Structure formats: C-alpha cells, structure tokens
C-alpha cells in the first residue's frame, strides 16, 4: 500500500519503517516558528522547565507580527521577550520591524519553507506552507517550548483527504474562492484532523500566491495540513533559494479517507458571511450588503499578486464616501514592490490607507478595529463573532478583486460590475 505526500514527509522525519493514520509519532522538525502572541508563553515554559539552550539556533524563527509594530505597552513587552530571546540564543531568523512581515508571507519569501520540510508554528495558519509541498502545521506554545528543547513534536498521523478541482477558472476567481468553496462544501470541521491534499488540473495551473491562499485556510475546515504536490511552478519559486528542498509525490496506490471531485468552471467569486468561514455564498447573492470597511491584506491575501489585482480595479477610481479602505502589504518586500509598481499610489489616490506589514485588524489587534454595528469585507481568513473588533460587528470574507470592487460601490460587488 502506498503513501500520500503527507505520510511520506512525516515518515521521513522519524526513525520508523512505516506509519499509518491514527498512530502517534515523535517527529523531527526542520523549523519551529513563534510570534509575539505565542512565543512569549513558549519561552517562559522553556525557561521554567530549566532549559537554557535551543536545540538548533538556525531552526528557530521568531516573528513579531500580530501586535507589531507594538500597539501598546503590553504588546511592546511581548515583542521585547522575542528580541531578548533571539539575542540570548543567537537566533538569526528573528525579524524585527523593518525586515518583518506577516509570518506566513515572510517565511516562504526568504526561503525558510521548502518542499519536503516538516514545519511547526505556534500559529494556526502555519498550514500555509503546504502550498510548497511541505508538511506544515499549527501547534501550541508548549509544543513550541518542547521543540526548542529537542527539535521534536508529537503528532497523530492524520488520514488524508483528496480534493480534485477540474475545469477552468472564471475571470476574478482564484485560490481564495476555491478554498472558500471547499470550506462551504465540507464545513468548518469537514476535514477535522485530516491532511487535505489539493490537486487536479486547476491546481496545476494556479500561481504560487493563489496556492498559498488555499493552503492558508485548510485550518478553517479543521485540517492539520493543506498540501499541494510540488511541480514546475513550485520549482520555479524555490529556484531562487540555495536550498531546494525535497519533492515528494503521493503514490498512485496511496490511501485517502475520502476524495472530492469538483468541476469549478461555473464558480463565481465566493464570499463567507458572518460568523463562520463555511457560511459561503456566491458574490451575486449578496449585492445589497452595505459596508463600512474593506480590508485587503493578511497571510491569506496580502501578497503582491493580490495587491496587483486590487490596484488594477481601484486605479483611477474613488472609494465610496464614508467607507474605510485599509490595504496592508504582507511584507516589506511586497510593500516596496507596491511602491515601485505604483500600486501604493493607486490605493491612496482612491481614498484608502496603505499600512505597514502587520496582522493588524485581521484578528482584531489594531490598525482598523470595527465598532459596534459596523460591517466589513476582508480578504482575511476568519469571520468569527468579534474577530475584528466589537462582538456586535460583522465580517465577510472574499478575494481581493471583490474587496476592491466593493470598496468603490460601498456594498458587496462583483468585480465585473466595475
């Protein structure tokens, strides 16, 4: 019996001869990530347990991105814990503001996440890197503390579920729509504890940025991972780095718990309505939904491809009077590319703000919190009650094209209408 790509990567990180779903394993990690919310607990636990030196200073990554640039004194103190620990342990992969970015956009950009790697991150959207054909998964702070000690993680081997996308994507439809459609179909626990594998002809022609958007939201269906087999597009992306990674493919006789096959040729842009990412409708069903704020950014859709699409729609236009448009490039490099390509100017001239890289309002941190009764459309990944501010606010999720078009009209709008 063959193995899926998820099983192959996990097996390669153990001393075992074979593994099967449901089994508990101890695996060796290639990278252990923490941020300004989760790493402080990990560092505290690591020290409290009496440990003094991390297992490998080159495999520890610290990114202050959630409440950074520090939104208040207490966040500043949390960020400082990371900076101090990085200095004390000589961790070079510490990203201070100025070279910082939203972690899941930043790490692939600097070549820290490569095909075949086993990556853990104390952040649920660590599954993003699965787009590169690695096994990356969200864990907690204590898991991270333990990985600091011996570079290992306990895992239950997940069963794999295959998602096959056939047909041809419509204009304005991309990775975000595919994953929203998927979550809408299977539900927020439809892939609970599973390794999701995205495949089929549609995935094979999808850009890296669209693939990252898809894998990013695997967790929103309960998935432990959202993996795409590496191919020529992956190879082109990783060719810029010294390390190339290892390209695994699922065996033809690999076992999947379930396989979904969808023809997406008729798929319209998708929108997740409050208060669950699975509450998905087609954009045209929501044309009378009035908005107070539009947010374009995050680890889901704050990459250059996303911002190019948004700027193309907004260029030369004005956003609806009274609406707040917040654009957040996910990394410093993307920020600079936006400036060079004139995208930043398009956003500002349209009446939006162009903010510094940060998770910002996505998790209700800062830089765009919603007041009671306010309605937002965001390119982010979660729309739980109170996610972006007041428990009495409302968040819709969409792709960047729908977000840009909707900023112009002030209500949820199909980009074709602009």
């Amino acid at each position: 019996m063959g193995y899926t790509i998820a099983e192959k990567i996990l097996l390669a990180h153990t001393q075992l001869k074979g593994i099967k779903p449901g089994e508990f394993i101890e695996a060796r990690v290639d990278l252990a990530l923490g941020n300004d919310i989760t790493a402080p607990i990990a560092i505290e636990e690591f020290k409290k347990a009496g440990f003094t030196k991390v297992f490998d200073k080159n495999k520890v990554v610290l990114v202050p991105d959630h409440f950074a640039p520090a939104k208040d004194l207490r966040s500043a103190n949390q960020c400082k814990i990371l900076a101090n620990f990085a200095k004390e342990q000589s961790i070079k992969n510490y990203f201070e503001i100025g070279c910082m970015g939203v972690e899941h956009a930043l790490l692939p950009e600097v070549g820290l996440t490569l095909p075949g790697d086993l990556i853990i991150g104390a952040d649920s959207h660590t599954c993003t890197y699965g787009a590169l054909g690695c096994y990356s998964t969200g864990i907690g702070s204590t898991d991270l503390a333990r990985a600091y000690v011996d570079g290992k993680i306990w895992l239950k081997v997940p069963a794999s579920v295959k998602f096959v996308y056939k047909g041809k994507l419509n204009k304005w439809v991309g990775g975000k729509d595919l994953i929203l459609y998927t979550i809408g179909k299977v539900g927020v626990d439809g892939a609970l504890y599973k390794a999701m594998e995205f495949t089929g002809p549609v995935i094979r022609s999808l850009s890296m940025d669209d693939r990252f958007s898809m894998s990013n939201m695997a967790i929103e269906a309960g998935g432990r991972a959202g993996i795409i087999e590496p191919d020529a597009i992956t190879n082109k992306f990783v060719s810029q780095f010294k390390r190339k990674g290892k390209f695994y493919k699922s065996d033809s006789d690999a076992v999947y718990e379930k396989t979904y096959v969808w023809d997406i040729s008729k798929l319209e842009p998708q929108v997740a309505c409050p208060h669950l990412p699975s509450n998905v409708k087609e954009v045209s069903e929501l044309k009378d939904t009035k908005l107070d704020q539009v947010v374009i950014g995050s680890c889901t859709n704050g990459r250059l491809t996303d911002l190019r699409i948004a700027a193309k729609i907004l260029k030369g236009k004005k956003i609806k009077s009274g609406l707040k448009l917040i654009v957040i490039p996910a990394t410093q490099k993307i920020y600079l590319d936006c400036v060079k390509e004139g995208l930043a100017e398009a956003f500002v001239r349209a009446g939006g703000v162009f903010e510094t890289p940060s998770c910002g309002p996505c998790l209700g941190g800062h830089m765009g919190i919603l007041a009671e009764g306010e309605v937002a459309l965001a390119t982010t990944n979660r729309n739980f009650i109170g996610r972006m501010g007041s428990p009495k606010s409302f968040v819709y999720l969409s792709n960047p094209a729908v977000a840009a078009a909707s900023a112009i009209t002030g209500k949820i709008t199909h980009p074709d209408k602009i």
Partner: protein
Amino acid sequence: MIIKGKAHKFGDDINTDDIISAKYLVSTDAKELGSHCMESISPDFAKKVQPGDIIVGGENFGCGSSREHAPLAIKGCGVRAVVAKSFAAIFFRNSINIGLPFLESQETDNINEGDTLEINISSGIIKNLTQDKTYKTAPFPKFLQDIVEDGGLMNYIKAKERKHV
C-alpha cells in the same frame, strides 16, 4: 482523576476567539485571561462559573487559532474539565500539553445546563448525578495519558530526559 462540578452548556464550533478574544492576548496570566473567558458570546460566564465546574460543548470545540491562551483562560476561570462531541486539533493538543482534562462524548445533547457531572478521566466514565445517568467515552490513548499524568508536556519531556541520563 475524578472531577465533579456543574455543567455549562455551549453549542457547536465554539472557536478560540469566543473562548478568549484577541484583545486580551497581551497577557499570559491564566487568572487574568480567565476573567474574560467566553466574554463575546456569554458576557457573564466568568462571573457565574464556580471553581470545579465543567464546560460542555458540541462539535469542533476550540476551532480557530493556535492560542494556548484559550485552554489557559478556561483553566484560569476555574473550569476543571471540558466535555464535547469533538475537539479541534490544536485545542486538543494544547489541552493535553497544559494538563486541562477533557473527554469526547456524543451524549452532550442529553446534558442540561446546571446538571452536576462527575467525570473520571482515566476510565472515560461521565456520571450525570442530576439525571442519574452514566455515559461511557473512550479514554485517552496511553501516550496522551502519560503526558497528562506527568502534568503536561514539559514535565513529560523532563521525565523522559531523566530516564535517559
């Protein structure tokens, strides 16, 4: 380990933003986090919960973010255990790692708000003392029981290191 307390009922898909809103993630103190537990969906929860009480949820309890502040907040407000139909994977592992006991049971619809429960973590038996009923659940696999018995993952790792020395 036997835990006895009153049941506080919640529905399906209780997410980590429900359990502890991100605005409170500037603290790692369980007591402080606990004072805001479930605030967005049940504003009085932290005030009315008594030490030793038990949260009873539906499917996919703890979905969403990786924040360990969620099980910490539950512990910090005095709740001793969680019973739900299913748990989201990261919440599951965080609870094991910090030693918050929980059980998976399909019978949670039969438990009413305020019922007194007595749960045995090692055997997986839940007794509903109010209704005089017993629900059987599958106890944790041995590997996870070992972590919980050692008092969480860091103690487990230290114990393992000692054995090797």
